[in-house]
């Protein structure tokens, strides 16, 4: 094969995979509204995606806010504008860092586990077994995870935001000595509903990306990632890499639309 053919076959492969990814999303969209709704399973997944991610979200949120408070303090003090520390910290967290960093942390913690779990179910024929029992694997395995992700990731982002703002307050006001009153009042006057709304839209769209990509990679382990345990490992890595890159790219596009 010469290089033009290789390029061509690569393009076909990428397009086909992309097409399957979107077809997968449409199938999820179809099954998500079909009863029965598996509340027990959704709670279980919410526990896994939401509750078990809480520690890592609080930790990253606190440190992100603290470092922003510190950087902001020294940068703003050059302009004599320490009064704006509150708005600088809260706006950067609510609009940008909160949604993006929470999404990346959830991808690393829960997304990889989702891909691995579904991948193992694929290679051990558990998904086929459900299919033969006329129980659709997307309905029973994928949809509860997607619903749980859609509910949990925005909440995790909100928690990240609040913890981050508290972190910024702690370093900026308590450690470095900016005025607490002006921190809070500048934050309250600058942050608008549009900013909170932007963060919310971002985190919802990120949760769609994470759940769709990670479930897809697990679901089609045998087709796209190879056989056996190695295939599952490969699917997990691919899921994390594609979700993370997609989150950052999508973040740029959605910011340019919403700003």
């Amino acid at each position, binding site marked *: 094969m010469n290089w033009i053919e290789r390029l061509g076959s690569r393009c076909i492969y990428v397009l086909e995979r992309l097409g399957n990814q979107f077809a997968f999303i449409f199938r999820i969209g179809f099954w998500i509204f079909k009863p*029965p709704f598996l509340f027990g399973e959704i709670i279980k997944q919410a526990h896994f995606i939401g509750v078990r991610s809480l520690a890592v979200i609080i930790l990253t949120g606190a440190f992100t806010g603290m470092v922003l408070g510190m950087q902001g303090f020294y940068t703003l003090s050059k302009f004599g504008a320490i009064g704006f520390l509150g708005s600088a910290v809260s706006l950067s967290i609510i609009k940008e860092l909160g949604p993006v960093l929470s999404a990346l942390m959830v991808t690393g913690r829960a997304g990889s586990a989702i891909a691995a779990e579904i991948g193992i*179910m694929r290679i*051990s024929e558990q998904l*086929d*077994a459900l299919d*033969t029992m*006329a*129980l659709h694997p997307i309905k029973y395995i994928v949809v509860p995870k997607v619903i749980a992700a859609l509910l949990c990731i925005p909440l995790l982002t909100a928690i990240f935001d609040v913890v981050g703002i508290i972190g910024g307050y702690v370093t900026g006001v308590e450690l470095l000595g900016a005025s607490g009153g002006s921190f809070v009042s500048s934050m309250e006057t600058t942050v608008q509903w549009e900013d909170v709304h932007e963060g919310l839209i971002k985190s919802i769209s990120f949760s769609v990306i994470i759940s769709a990509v990670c479930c897809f990679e697990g679901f089609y382990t045998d087709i796209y990632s190879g056989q056996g345990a190695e295939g599952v490992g490969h699917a997990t890595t691919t899921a994390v890499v594609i979700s993370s890159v997609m989150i950052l790219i999508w973040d740029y596009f959605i910011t340019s639309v919403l700003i």
Partner: protein
Amino acid sequence: MIEILNLRKNFLEQEVLKGVNLKIPDKKVTAIVGRSGCGKTVLLKHIIGLIKPESGQVLVDGDDISRINGSRLNQVKNKFGMLFQGAALLDSMTVFENVAFPLEEKTKLSKAEIKERVQTELKNVGIVGMDAKYPSQLSGGMKKRVGLARALIMQPEIILFDEPTTGLDPIMKKAIHKLIHDTQRRINCTAVVVSHDIPDVFEITDYVVMLHNGVIVEEGDADAFQNSANPSVQQFLKGEIEGPISV
């Protein structure tokens, strides 16, 4: 009645099934034998519609399983029970929950009735007092038994077995064979067994089909099959290296 007509399937460039024609007799045990990787499992998965063929048909009581969908397909699937090679029990559920799962999702039986039926079915396959165990705590033979209980719980007309004895010790092999035989006699269903467990599998089968190079090379009653004049069959039965089948 399962009828397979000119079934073809490729994986990437490789032709796995090259026009399989087969009628599987009702209420009998049919074995599909052949070398590893000759496409036996692929054929089995076509029968239950897990894999879609390139061309050809699989008719289950007249319905082409690769061309129907929705509730019609579910009706046809409900006629089947399948025991997978690794049993394919759901890891996150206990033995009881695994067997009860189809009943809970597809019937409106009460909790007590479900419990009753699950326990009867588990007893039939020889599993007692293991309800709360998880699949990871069971041995290979135990998993197969639980998998069979799950396949039987919806009272299917056809049961498919994908290499039911692979990876088991000789005693467990015999036990599983006996279980397949007894189950088939008890509920009077059609059974299809994919196996390369020669000659043990002949003890339980009424009809044998040999798949080689993507086509059926020989089929017949168990005795007739063993006495077949086809050199490929004889080489396969005796496990010889020399012969028409190249290693």
